[in-house]
């Protein structure tokens, strides 16, 4: 190909990549540093990871995050997949407007979502807790699921469904035996993204969580506010590795069409 990359573009890009990734890598490396205050390397240790296990708030936060993540993922994935199916397979009045509406939660700043839900829950006097967090996370991640699943549905070969019907399968059978198996990677990657959004979310959660229902990001935020200590590096490393694995999985699923 005749389009060559100018050298400076390569060098410049390398610097930008460094800017994007070096801070995270440094953070991870120093989670193994055997010194509480210094940023000089004082030897390798798992000490900070052991410390995490001794902290009940972190374990409770992790538990809350997993429960919230699990529940909101299931709900958002089911509801989102249904919406995607309707959009891909049916013409209905107001479709364009509806699609536009789906994008609104994505562009809405999280802080707006958070406080508007806080007001709602206060108004109808629902006590803040895991349930309210799940409600909020579903509302925020639903649109992402729809978009991921819809992309997969639109890339799917419709003639397969038609072939199934010609071969005698009714709509319901066709759906379960042909559509769903093909759609599975899309659904799964939608679910992974929903889980990641939920697992990582701090801003919205900070408004709709009660005192006994702090998720992991809430706990970490508290730690960061109080003091910069290597345990935060350790828990950050764990969070990063989990999300990286999830994103990698989702990425593979989307790509292996």
């Amino acid at each position, binding site marked *: *190909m005749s*389009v060559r*990359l*100018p050298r400076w573009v*390569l060098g*410049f*890009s390398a610097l*930008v*990549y460094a*800017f*994007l*990734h070096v*801070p*995270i890598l*440094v953070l991870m490396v120093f989670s193994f540093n055997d010194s509480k*205050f210094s*940023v*000089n390397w004082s030897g390798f240790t798992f000490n900070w990871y052991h410390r995490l296990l001794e902290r009940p708030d972190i374990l409770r936060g992790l538990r809350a995050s997993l429960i919230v993540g699990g529940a909101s993922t299931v709900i958002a994935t089911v*509801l989102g997949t*249904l919406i995607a*199916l*309707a959009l891909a397979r*049916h*013409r*209905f009045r107001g479709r364009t407007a509806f699609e536009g509406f*789906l994008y*609104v939660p994505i*562009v*809405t*700043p*999280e*802080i*707006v979502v958070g*406080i*508007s*839900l806080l*007001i*709602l829950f*206060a108004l109808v006097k629902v006590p803040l807790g895991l349930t309210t967090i799940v*409600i*909020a996370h*579903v*509302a925020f991640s*639903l649109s992402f699921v729809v978009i991921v699943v819809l992309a997969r549905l639109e890339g799917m070969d419709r003639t397969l469904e038609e072939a199934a019907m010609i071969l005698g399968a009714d709509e*319901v059978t066709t759906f379960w035996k042909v559509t769903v198996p093909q759609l599975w990677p899309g659904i799964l990657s939608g679910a992974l993204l929903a889980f990641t959004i939920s697992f*990582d979310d*701090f*801003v919205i959660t900070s408004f709709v969580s009660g005192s006994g229902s702090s998720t992991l*990001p809430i706990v*970490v935020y508290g730690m*960061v506010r109080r003091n*910069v200590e290597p345990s*935060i590096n350790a828990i*950050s490393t764990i*969070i*990063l590795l989990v999300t*990286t694995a999830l*994103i990698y999985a989702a*990425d593979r699923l989307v*790509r292996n069409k």
Partner: protein
Amino acid sequence: MAAVRERLLAWLHPRPQARAWALLAPGTLWLLLFFLVPLIIMFVYSMMPRGIYGGVDPGFTLEHYRRFFDPLYLDILRRTFVWSIACTAICLVLGYPVAYAIARGGQWKNLLLFLVVLPFWTSFLVRTFAMIFLLRDSGLVNNWMLRLGVIEHSITLLYTPFAVMAGLVYGFLPFMILPIYASLEKLDLSLLEAAEVLGARPVERFRRVTLPLSMPGVVAGCLLVFIPALGSFLTADLLGGAKQMMIGNLVQNQFSAARNWPFGSAASFIVMALVLLAVMFYLRVKDRAPGEAPLR
């Protein structure tokens, strides 16, 4: 069971609209109840008098919006706006060459792309913490600069506008790269070859073909950076300290320490309005072809 299924099918078959809505209803209901309705309530709250212990009292007032003309709040609004624009501009300058490199990355393309998608999805909180870790007085940046002899004493990086800007750019850069990459990726290479055969050197080729054809990506990227920057809260909260407040921090503050819910709602609504304006602007420009004027 089979009979129920038969009857359901028989009922749904001639009613495609009903089928569509049966699929749409649960999710839509959720979004209406827990997304749209709260926004409306928030809007209503923003025009009601403040309650004593948080919440609101009955009545109607525009006082909260009027308060934004107070220099203190105008300042916050201006800062938010200027910083969001600056962040967008910096992201564009940093992001475009990277997007270009990925699009022409050949065998490395997938890996390079993944390395941009990754921060896109990883915890914003953790990434902001990474910035703190680097920038604080006893952090790595100071440490290395001391060692290299660039500075003699630690300098304050954290809690400065510089730190906030670095955090914003660090946080939102992937949002700029991905859409620009997508539009460059779609670019038909034969167009570039055509430009070359017609006599365009690389610089001209970029100016007259590549750049105009990647404009949709540039515009989308700017929107995707500008919007979250406008509504950002964590960055200024953790990296900026009290003096570098953005409107997101103002909102948060009204719902925690200040306990002025209607004022917070008004601020929040202003954020939302700015976002919608930006989106409308985007939809306006999006479809306008970035062509050149006709010959006379």
